[in-house]
């Protein structure tokens, strides 16, 4: 193995010197400064009950699922094309990432043709969302070539996430409340219809309450019966003691007319086609309908109230812990570190190849 004696071997040049010089050129001259703006936020969704210690254990083991639906939705959204197109509506991202001040190697569309698919790939390389399963905090960091761009893009993505969470939560809430409201409205119309039908029947039949009316009529009938009984007794007494009395024909007419009246009234209460009992059957049906509808209405009103309360409880929202920061120093690229890494990897590759090639050379013909 020949180290840097007087002239470095071609292998050393290709494995170590060329890559290191390339790295020095890139990191020293070409690589543009990258500013990283970071924001931290929580997606609050009170539908998730307070985490018990058991829940924490399960969540920690990857079984319970630590994050909530809404925060998963935010992560998925931020890593989707929709987030990119939404954020780039006024070409903020396009301008920030393909500005002429950015070096050709780092710029979007600098070396490769610019199209939407490549821009999405590029975007994924610049935006990082990291959910922390134990604390439920989401870290959103955005890299850009100017501090203001980094913060503006971060701010915009954060706003879009907020809009998404609001949309999801409004939707979930309005779905439940809408259904309950529809139910309540239907119950209301049914109750009203039933009451109207009952009132119309009362008007038509000319009775308020058949049972009470029947009672009143029966009372009338029994009074007539009493009168009939006393008239009969009087008639009997007169016929046996004073058969010649002049009142007897009068009493006879009274008894007869009382009997006719009683028969007529009985027919009005029960039996005939226009009797009260026939009316009561129809009336009972309508009354029952109306009562059921009223009870149903009360129940749906209670569930509507519950739905409203549940919706108030279900409200999910984004809580900003730390707003997008304005970086004042480019933390990337790590220029010296990059050069050293390339140098060390080159040395390793050179070492391996040297030993391998030396191993091959140990085989000789003959």
């Amino acid at each position: 193995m020949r180290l840097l004696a007087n002239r470095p071997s071609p292998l050393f040049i290709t494995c170590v010197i060329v890559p290191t010089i390339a790295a020095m050129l890139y990191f020293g001259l070409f690589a543009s400064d990258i500013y990283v703006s970071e924001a931290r936020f929580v997606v609050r969704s009170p539908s998730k009950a307070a985490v018990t210690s058991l829940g924490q254990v399960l969540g920690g083991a990857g079984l319970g699922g630590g994050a909530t639906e809404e925060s998963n939705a935010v992560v998925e959204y931020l890593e989707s094309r929709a987030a990119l197109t939404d954020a780039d509506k006024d070409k903020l991202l396009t301008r920030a990432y393909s500005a002429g001040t950015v070096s050709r190697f780092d710029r979007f569309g600098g070396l490769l043709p610019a199209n939407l698919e490549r821009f999405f790939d590029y975007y994924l390389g610049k935006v990082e969302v990291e959910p922390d399963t134990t604390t439920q905090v989401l870290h959103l960091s955005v890299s850009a070539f100017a501090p203001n761009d980094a913060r503006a893009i971060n701010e915009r993505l954060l706003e879009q996430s907020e809009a998404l969470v609001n949309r999801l939560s409004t939707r979930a809430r309005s779905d439940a409340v809408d259904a309950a409201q529809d139910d309540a409205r239907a119950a209301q119309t049914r109750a009203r219809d039933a009451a109207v039908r009952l009132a119309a029947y009362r008007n038509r039949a000319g009775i308020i309450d058949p049972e009470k009316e029947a009672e009143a009529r029966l009372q009338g009938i029994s009074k007539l019966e009493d009168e009939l009984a006393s008239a009969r007794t009087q008639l009997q007494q007169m016929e046996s003691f004073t058969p010649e009395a002049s009142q007897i024909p009068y009493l006879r007419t009274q008894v007869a007319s009382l009997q006719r009246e009683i028969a007529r009234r009985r027919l009005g209460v029960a039996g005939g086609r226009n009797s009260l009992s026939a009316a009561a059957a129809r009336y009972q049906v309508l009354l029952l309908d109306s009562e059921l509808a009223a009870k149903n209405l009360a129940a749906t009103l209670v569930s509507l109230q519950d739905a409203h309360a549940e919706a108030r409880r279900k409200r999910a929202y984004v809580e900003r812990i730390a707003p997008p920061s304005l970086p004042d120093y480019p933390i990337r690229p790590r220029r010296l570190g990059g050069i050293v890494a390339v140098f060390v990897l080159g040395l390793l590759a050179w070492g391996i190849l040297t030993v391998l090639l030396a191993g091959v050379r140990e085989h000789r013909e003959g």
Partner: protein
Amino acid sequence: MSTAAHGFRASLGVQGRVLHALLLREMLTRYGRHNIGFLWLFVEPMLFTLGVAALWTAAKAYHGSDLPIVAFALTGYSSVLLWRNMPGRCIGALWSNLSLLYHRNIRVLDIYVARVLLEFGGATMSFAGLSILFITLGWIDPPRNILEVVGGWLLIAWFGAALAITLGALSHQSELVDKLWHPASYLIFPLSGAAFLVDALPTAAQEYVLYIPMVHGTEIVREGFFGTRVHAHYDLAYVIPFCLALTFVALFTVQHTARRVVPE
């Protein structure tokens, strides 16, 4: 320069012939010409994988995704066989081949490389064969991105080969390596990504699991196989330097051992 290049090419030819001869010898001594002979080379790992796939299917093992368990077992267990069998074969390989070192052109590294190549071939044929079989039977879908599967597979093989050669060379100097490898390989197996998807682990555990190099390879193979159905976690910027460094260590251990080896 041209003479040097010519000499190098000649040496490479010699080494190729040596490796070829060693491979044939290895196959014959290990499997002989009885029954199906060298077919055992890949039938053996196939049976292993089939058994594990059947066992996991029967047990409905939990693996944290909605992938078919057969596909999961195939990608996971084949990867394990790939990196686990190479060190297994290379440990102690030198002792059984010491007499060969009388030949000038058979070097210590050749013996290890021959065994590594044999294991790689066996595991690859088993993986490919079973994949084709399962795809034909309709149990699994064809891989989404074959090149990515190949890349992940080669990455695991690289790691396995470097580990195998290091351990093989060390085992010639100390018997401890042989004794420790067996428990170690069984302990690493559950951590190697064969039985779980990194995505199914909590974030805190993912961070540590990704220090294990084979996990990255297995994840790449799975991503190539299943496409976007799995959310693969891997970091080439970690595995490739790791493998480079391990290869470096491997070659230097071999040199160290070769200088000390005493042919019988």
